[in-house]
């Protein structure tokens, strides 16, 4: 084996320029594959953390209306009657009628970390300066903290003050800017003629621009009075231990509770799809660089096989088997692959680290002031796998051709 590696190395060195070109292609292909994956995953991960921190993993929403009718079937003898249920589309009764009962049921599901009732309604929000259309969310602070990241989203003020102040209100950062208010100030919420006064306990920033521009939090009891809904709530927000299992758990809940239950994956389907397409698209683009490098390597190895047919023949005549010859050419591919992948991974790590601190202002589905990256071993393994497959295919074809060299024919041909 050592001999074969040595021969492979010397053959490679002899084609230094061509091999450096292939190596460079693999290095950049691997590096940019990882780099782009780190970025798209970084933004996607941040988006997911933002929406989970704001909306939880599952929402138990509207109640199903009983729409099943049945058809009675009977035999001629009049016995053996049975029913065929017929579902005529699904309709909903908005909101949740028995929140406490449903909360208890939700908490029984395994994997549920917390559940909190939420009453939501559209309101007019007025400060001394101006009035804005917005939305208020009535919560039980203790329960809501179990299903959201609100605690870490307070950028000004104190969540404890809000918890202890019945007429306290939390205001989204963009909305607070527009209204020109700070913690300690007062504002009014107006809903269909019902107007109530609140003291600002804190300003929050979820990162979701629309949410921060329109939303406020008040105590559930206050929301009930304001929105005139003393019994119902709009939905139950749920946090689960494993967010990835939310769709399966949501399906179970929907079946068991008779309410429409949406997982975060279902609610954010379109954005997740955008991120998925971006990730695949960048992976495909970067794989193309690796593929081109692989084609270059295939070309170089094919030329080596043609140019070295006499040397291959003599190796075969002095005791090297077909498998040895095959391995000599595969080792050439392996050397380029290992060097290219290792250097590519190092370059990717530097690029990722470098871009992490680059400033970029993004406001929309989430907000950030710098590039977001994700450090995942899977990006490195995926890049190594793609490069590995390309290099193996690129090396295998010439290697097989080399192994098929018939020493007798080559030497006889050379002799003329």
């Amino acid at each position, binding site marked *: 084996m*050592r*001999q074969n590696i040595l*021969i492979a190395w*010397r*053959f490679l*060195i*002899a084609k230094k320029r061509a091999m450096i070109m292939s190596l460079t292609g693999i290095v950049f292909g691997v590096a940019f594959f990882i780099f782009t994956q780190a970025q798209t995953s970084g933004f996607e991960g941040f988006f997911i953390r933002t929406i989970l921190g704001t909306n939880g993993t599952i929402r138990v929403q509207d109640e199903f209306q009983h729409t099943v009718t049945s058809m009675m079937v009977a035999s001629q003898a009049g016995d053996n009657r049975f029913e065929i249920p017929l579902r005529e589309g699904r309709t909903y009764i908005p909101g949740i009628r028995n929140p406490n009962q449903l909360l208890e049921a939700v908490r029984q599901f395994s994997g549920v970390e917390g559940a909190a009732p939420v009453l939501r309604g559209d309101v007019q929000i007025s400060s001394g300066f101006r009035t804005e259309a917005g939305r208020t969310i009535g919560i039980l602070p203790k329960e809501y903290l179990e299903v959201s990241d609100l605690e870490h989203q307070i950028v000004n003020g104190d969540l404890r003050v809000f918890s202890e102040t019945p007429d306290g209100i939390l205001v989204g950062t963009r909305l607070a800017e527009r209204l020109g208010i700070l913690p300690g100030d007062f504002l009014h919420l107006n809903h269909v003629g019902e107007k109530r006064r609140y003291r600002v306990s804190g300003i929050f920033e979820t990162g979701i621009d629309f949410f921060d521009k329109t939303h406020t939090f008040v105590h559930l009891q206050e929301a009930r009075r304001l929105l005139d809904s003393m019994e119902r709530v709009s939905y139950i927000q749920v946090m689960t231990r494993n967010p990835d299992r939310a769709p399966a758990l949501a399906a179970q809940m929907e079946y068991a509770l008779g309410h429409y239950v949406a997982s975060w994956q279902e609610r954010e389907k379109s954005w997740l799809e955008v991120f998925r397409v971006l990730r695949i698209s960048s992976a495909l683009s970067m794989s193309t660089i690796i593929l081109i490098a692989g084609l270059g390597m295939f070309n170089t190895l094919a030329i080596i096989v043609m140019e070295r047919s*006499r*040397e291959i*023949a*003599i*190796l*075969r*005549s*002095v*005791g*090297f*088997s*077909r498998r*040895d010859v095959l391995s000599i050419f595969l080792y050439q591919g392996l050397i380029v692959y290992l060097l290219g992948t290792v250097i590519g991974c190092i370059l990717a790590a530097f690029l990722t680290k470098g871009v992490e601190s680059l400033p970029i202002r993004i406001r929309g589905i989430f907000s950030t002031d710098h590039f977001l990256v994700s450090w995942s071993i899977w990006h490195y393994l995926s890049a190594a796998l793609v490069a590995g497959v390309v290099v193996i295919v690129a090396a295998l074809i010439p290697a097989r051709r080399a192994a098929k060299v*018939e*020493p*007798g024919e080559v*030497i*006889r041909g*050379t*002799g003329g």
Partner: protein
Amino acid sequence: MGNVMTNPVLETRDLHRTLGEGADRVHVLRGINLRLDRGKTYSIVGPSGCGKSTLLYLLGLLDRPDRGEILLNGRRVDHANESERTRIRGKHIGFVFQFHFLLSEFTAAENLMLPMLKQGGIEREAAYEKACHLLRLVGLADKTGRRGNQLSGGERQRVAVARALANDPDLILADEPTGNLDFKNSITLFEQLQGLAHELNRTILVVTHNRELAEACDATLSMVDGMFE
């Protein structure tokens, strides 16, 4: 032919080989019977296309006969499988071709060490010592570290001779070994080849067009139209 009192190194019985297909099919070897004894030098002469090289490649297990038997050290080897043929070639047969076919990225010594280390059973240092010894025998003691492209044509061919001896083969097959050399170098190389055969008790079979070199061997076989005369 040869000494019937000793076991032959190589023996063939009724060896046939055809090359080409269809209308181009040529019956190159037509029933070759041959016996080569240990420590002797043999030459095969004959006009171009008479089947000399084809016979040599069959004997070196680089090709397969259509019919007939090849026995190496009394053991039939013509129907050995690919890996067995590779092993036999590496251990029992040395080759010298018209062109040296040295690996130009390797030094003269390394070109000799490759078959030794491939065969196994020898340490790298010992292989290097042996390579230097063989290069000394062919008069290249001071060229062990030179690469193929730093040697003259005659020197490269002498390295090829030394390489053929690397694994102490029973049989050395040489196909026009001096075909690419001038007269002086041809004589030197051939004398070395012959001297080594006797000194190391190896059997050498040389295919050559050169009558003078052929007649310097212990026995000369003349071939015409795929058969010995």
